[in-house]
């Protein structure tokens, strides 16, 4: 609904009233709205409202050549675009039986983890800002920017990398890239104390985040929670471990867990995960030089590429949770159907609507950010 068409309602029969937050509101992640019914400052019920960002990507993809879709998939989730490219490529590869050369697989994982780092930094900042702490958001964005510098060097683009392609990645890593990546990881580790002091063990934040937006294990499974949000409920599930893809089974990493299922647990899981990603990236820096060979397998001329008829449900673990593409080919030059299943389809809608109930209005924004909801995954 367009905001101008909405009238805030005070319900005359009770003390309840409705307000509308978003779609342009600093407490809302992305172009998204949330309709709340309140009694005083307590949320009686909430209703997610999408549609402000709808670009019809799934429809668009049916009208474009297989390869042309590479340019639009990263746009589905701006803060964490790499998994979108990778999972689309994986689905096309699965249907057309293309084997990605090992070096290409390693470079893909490199990007996936670097993207996770960048996305988590972004989320720390956003989450902290909803509690009134703005410094972490400046830091998060500034430190993410250094990751974007690396992406720019690796892929030629800062935000929309368009670097993965069915068959592998478009070109090899530049000379000296791994050294610079290593320096960035050193830097991130050197920042850990600062972040801890400023955010993760700062009472100003911790006291605001604890006990907010609690999800218990049963609810988490029932509502289809995935990713860090699920792991913050004590459930050790991760697509990288349970349904491994690329070369994740050759990597050594832990799956950080928390039990409380609240906003604090979620941000702590992300904190730990960020440093697990650093650990993975260090392994890649060490191992990648010994993986020789091409970075991509040849594909047919993209202008005359009929992907064989078939279907694939490909999943990856994005920074936000389970990301899957259901891709169908009718044997033609364009996808017959691509269905994007983003983790936020759950987190930003039903989970948020449920968790918000009983919360106080000032915590709604924090709940949404703590779920790391990415509205474009809902709107597509």
């Amino acid at each position, binding site marked *: 609904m367009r905001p101008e068409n909405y009238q805030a309602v005070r319900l005359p029969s009770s003390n309840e009233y409705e307000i509308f937050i978003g779609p342009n509101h600093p407490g809302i992640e992305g172009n998204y709205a949330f309709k709340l019914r309140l009694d005083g400052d307590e949320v009686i019920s909430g209703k997610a409202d999408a549609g402000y960002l709808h670009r019809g990507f799934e429809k668009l993809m049916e009208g474009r050549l297989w*390869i042309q879709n590479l*340019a639009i998939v990263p746009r589905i989730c701006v803060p964490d675009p790499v998994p979108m490219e990778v999972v689309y490529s994986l689905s096309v590869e699965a249907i057309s039986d293309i084997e990605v050369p090992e070096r290409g697989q390693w470079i893909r994982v490199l990007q996936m983890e670097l993207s996770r780092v960048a996305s988590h930094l972004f989320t720390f900042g956003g989450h902290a800002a909803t509690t009134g702490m703005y410094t972490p958001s400046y830091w998060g964005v500034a430190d993410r920017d250094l990751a974007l510098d690396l992406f720019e060097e690796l892929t*030629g683009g800062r935000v929309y990398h368009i670097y993965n392609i069915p068959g592998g990645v478009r*070109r090899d890593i530049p000379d000296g890239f791994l050294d610079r990546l290593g320096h960035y990881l050193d830097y991130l580790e050197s920042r850990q104390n600062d972040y801890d002091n400023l955010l993760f*063990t700062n*009472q100003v934040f*911790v006291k605001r985040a604890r006990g907010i937006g609690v999800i218990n294990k049963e609810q988490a499974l029932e509502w289809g929670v995935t990713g860090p949000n699920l792991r913050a409920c004590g459930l050790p599930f991760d697509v990288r471990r349970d349904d491994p893809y690329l070369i994740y089974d050759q990597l050594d990493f832990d799956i950080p867990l928390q039990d409380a299922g609240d906003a604090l647990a979620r941000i*702590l899981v992300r904190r730990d995960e960020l440093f697990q990603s650093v650990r993975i990236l260090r392994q890649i820096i060490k191992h990648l030089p010994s993986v020789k060979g091409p970075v991509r397998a040849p594909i047919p001329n*993209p202008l005359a590429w009929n992907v064989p008829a078939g279907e694939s449900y490909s999943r990856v673990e994005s920074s936000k949770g389970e990301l899957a593409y259901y891709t169908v080919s009718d044997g033609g030059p364009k996808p017959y159907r691509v269905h994007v299943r983003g983790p936020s389809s759950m987190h930003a809608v039903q989970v948020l609507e449920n968790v918000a109930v009983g919360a106080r209005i000032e915590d709604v924004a924090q709940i949404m950010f703590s779920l790391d909801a990415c509205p474009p995954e809902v709107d597509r």
Partner: protein
Amino acid sequence: MKKIKYEDIGSILNPLKNLQFFARKPITEDLEPRPAAKIYRGFHLNDMEKCIGCSTCQKICDNAAITMVKVPHLKEDPVNGIKNLRPAIDYGRCCWCALCVDICPTGAIELSREYVHVCDGDEVDSYFILPQEKGIHGTEQEKGWTKTASNDLLARTRTDMGEMTPEARGDNFKEIVDGYTDEQAILEASRCVQCGMCHDSCPTHMHAPEYIRAIWKGNVEEAVEWMYETNPFSHVCGRVCTHRCETACSLNQTGLPQGSEPIAIRWLKRYAMDAVPHERIKEIVARKKSQEKTGKTIAIIGAGPAGLTAAFDLVKRGHDVQVFEALPKGGGMTRYGIPYYRLPDDSLERDIDVIQSMGVKIEYNTRIGEQISMAQLHTDYDAVVLAIGLQSGRSTRIPGSEHKDTRSAVELLRLIGNHDGDEAGFDIPRTAVVIGGGNVAMDIARSLARYQKQRFNQVEIIVTAIDELEKFPADKEEIKESLEEGITIIPSRGPQQVMIENDQIKGLKTWHVESVFDSDGRFAPQYDDSDEQIYPAEMVIEAIGQMAETELLGNTLTEQLEWERGRIKVAQDGSTSAPWLWSAGDCVNGPDVVHAVADGHRVAESIHACLTGNKVSDGKLNDE
């Protein structure tokens, strides 16, 4: 990594610790644009010289951001696959994905590291750019994302076709190549970028992009239908065409480290023609025949590609066509010049059969000028087409060339063509020298090699020409295969004398050629007579050039007609200075099958227009 316990709320002093940050040096970033990364995907650059205007970038562009613009002052050269179209980018649509760079056949289009452009609302035209060597603001810009072997998206390597090994083919006339299988053909067709350079360069403008696409879609009948739009000699051209299309093909690029081979357009044509049953081809072609008769009659002299193409077009339009052929079979030079191993008889027969099935009548063994005079044809028919080809071989006329064992290549090939299988129609020499570096020289050398192999189990043939090997007019494949078959090729030699002892040819004396052309590119060979060699041979075969046998015209008509440097002068539409006579094919254009086909169409068009009153031929030549 330091563990944080969920229960840990941190020291009450923790917030105060953050005061330390006031003591840290602030980080300052300049407001100036930062230099972008080395492979940044910024605004486009286009090397206007390298760009061939193929519009492949436009086809891959996922945002429909590219418009092809005609730039008149740039080179337009269809024969070499260059159009004067250049991509213009709408930066209101472009998303800088650089797929245009990755797919560009030549590597002309690239992205720069320039990324700042600001304008007011009324300067919105500045979003539409024709990229050139300099950046969008006309300043020198560094390259960003460019083509490398890794991000190149085109399949540069041709799909291999099975063929007989030199050992297997050396002693027989079986067709060398196997032709594509369905899978190979679809794979090869999939490499095409649909630029249409092939269509523009083809003398008869075959719809190659369309039939390649049809083959890729698996629809061979549609492919055949497209072919017959412009070429009733598709079996022949599918095997022996000079394939200018492949020269012009956008994928025919040198200068790329990964190499780039043109689409095997000729082999795809061969594949589609062979993939559709002969009777079905006749049905497809017959659909285009006019149901109405015009009552006009046309005589065509010569049942080669030009004559029969004209005949095909004219019967299609309801005219009555009679073809006269001096030799016992049709096909002209394609039968009596090209050996079976390149063009099997039955392929040619099938082409001719389709043409005859449309109602073309052919009278063989009928030599105009002897049995029937030109004057008679003029009286009996509404129009006459002279499509007599170049049947007579040129001689070097060096001393000794008048000897009976100095033979002309075309004459020998005609003898071979008139005989079947292992019979040549002349005595096979144990040793022979062929003078000439064209396909005819290779044809006779390779035919002779096969006979030698059969009879003597060894090949003793030297091919020699004044050109350097790279400049031989023959196809590269022909040269390669000749060498494989045991033929010796000695380039850069000028023939001086046929050596004769006791009335027997003993060899050919040659001098070394130091250079062939002058600075204007005209023929002016420089010889070094101190480097003299004699190649032993029982037979010397001349394959240096051909000419038309125009004696059939008779003196009166020869005098009536206008001529141009030894050839009958024709207008663009093939009409001669005699209002009832047209001429087409090799005898006016020089030797080339597909050119002859194109010519056949041209005269048919002109005759049809003339006979149906759409154009009156006044006998005057409208010069080109």
